[in-house]
């Protein structure tokens, strides 16, 4: 076995010597070219990954003006028309009516309107609302949640307008009205939000 190990060691040394003699060295310019190409590829891949991440995230985090209008995020993907959602008025009482006006939806497509509220909300639908919205679960007193209020079709321009009635009794915590629709630029549903104030009449 010791002889075999010596022989293998000798064979390895010979292999290394022969490999050294047989090595084919490419010109250094070739290596430099490959290095530059790889750097460019890395840069392009990084920019692409960042752009993809921005495109994936920003439609969901459009910035909001708390005075009652919403505006798209600074790098939101381009659509056929600007996206906006305006509530008029921005303050009401439980059972009150608010007009929602918005733009940026796909022409003639359905727009769903609703209300959502934060944890700590107290929302229970009135008997009348329960009749008109069968299947909607009765919201618990402390959970955050959302409730669909209406549905309209967007105009050929992509804009829409609808009156929605704020659920009665008794107080909704930090309510936000939302409108959800498909856009002409993307097959994904795009949701816009606008904050409102619901004051307790008592």
């Amino acid at each position: 076995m010791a002889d075999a190990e010596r022989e293998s060691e000798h064979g390895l040394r010979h292999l290394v010597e022969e490999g050294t003699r047989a090595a084919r060295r490419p010109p250094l310019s070739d290596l430099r070219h490959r290095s530059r190409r790889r750097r460019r590829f890395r840069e392009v891949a990084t920019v692409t990954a960042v752009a993809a991440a921005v495109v994936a995230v920003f439609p969901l985090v459009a910035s909001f003006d708390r005075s009652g209008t919403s505006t798209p995020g600074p790098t939101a993907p381009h659509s056929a028309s600007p996206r906006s959602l305006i509530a008029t008025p921005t303050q009401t009482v439980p059972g009150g009516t608010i007009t929602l006006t918005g733009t940026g939806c796909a022409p003639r497509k359905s727009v769903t309107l609703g209300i959502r509220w934060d944890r700590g909300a107290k929302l229970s639908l009135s008997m009348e609302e329960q009749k008109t919205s069968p299947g909607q679960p009765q919201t618990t007193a402390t959970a955050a949640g959302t409730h669909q209020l209406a549905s309209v079709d967007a105009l050929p321009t992509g804009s829409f307008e609808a009156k929605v009635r704020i659920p009665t009794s008794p107080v909704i915590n930090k309510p936000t009205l939302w409108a959800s629709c498909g856009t002409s630029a993307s097959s994904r549903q795009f949701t816009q939000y606008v904050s409102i104030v619901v004051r307790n009449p008592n």
Partner: protein
Amino acid sequence: MTDFEEFYESSYARLVGQLFSVTGSLEQAEDVVQEAFIRALDRWPRIQAYDVPELWVRRVAINLAVSEIRRLRRRAAALLRLGAQRPQPQLTPQTAEVAELLLRVPVNQRPVLLLHDVLDLPIDQVAGQLGLPVSTVRGRLARARANLARHLAADPEGALSHHGRR
């Protein structure tokens, strides 16, 4: 001639020869050494300050050979299918047989053979260069030698016997 160019021209062939004993294939040895030189080129201002920059390149090439051997094999097979194979290097039949025997030794054991049995580095330096505990190096060395000896015993008229008789 720049420092890097000088370094590249003086050490490339030597490193390919050494890595040949890790990959068992001259083409793969060239691939990993070239890749290591490209990485060295990107970091040359830092690497040229080292006492022996060649050690850094060899370490990177060994790591590539051990970790990417499967990917390199797939690529080589693809190139073969596309007909983009490089011309075969002129190797003696004995060396070709040794290379073939090497392929039967696990790839993570081959760098230990190179550094200790071919380059005559002491065990602790082998451990330092490979970033392994000394005990691991001893174990791999023993297993690699036993592996080669076993295959040699199974092939008594083969390549290593010819070398041994010289």
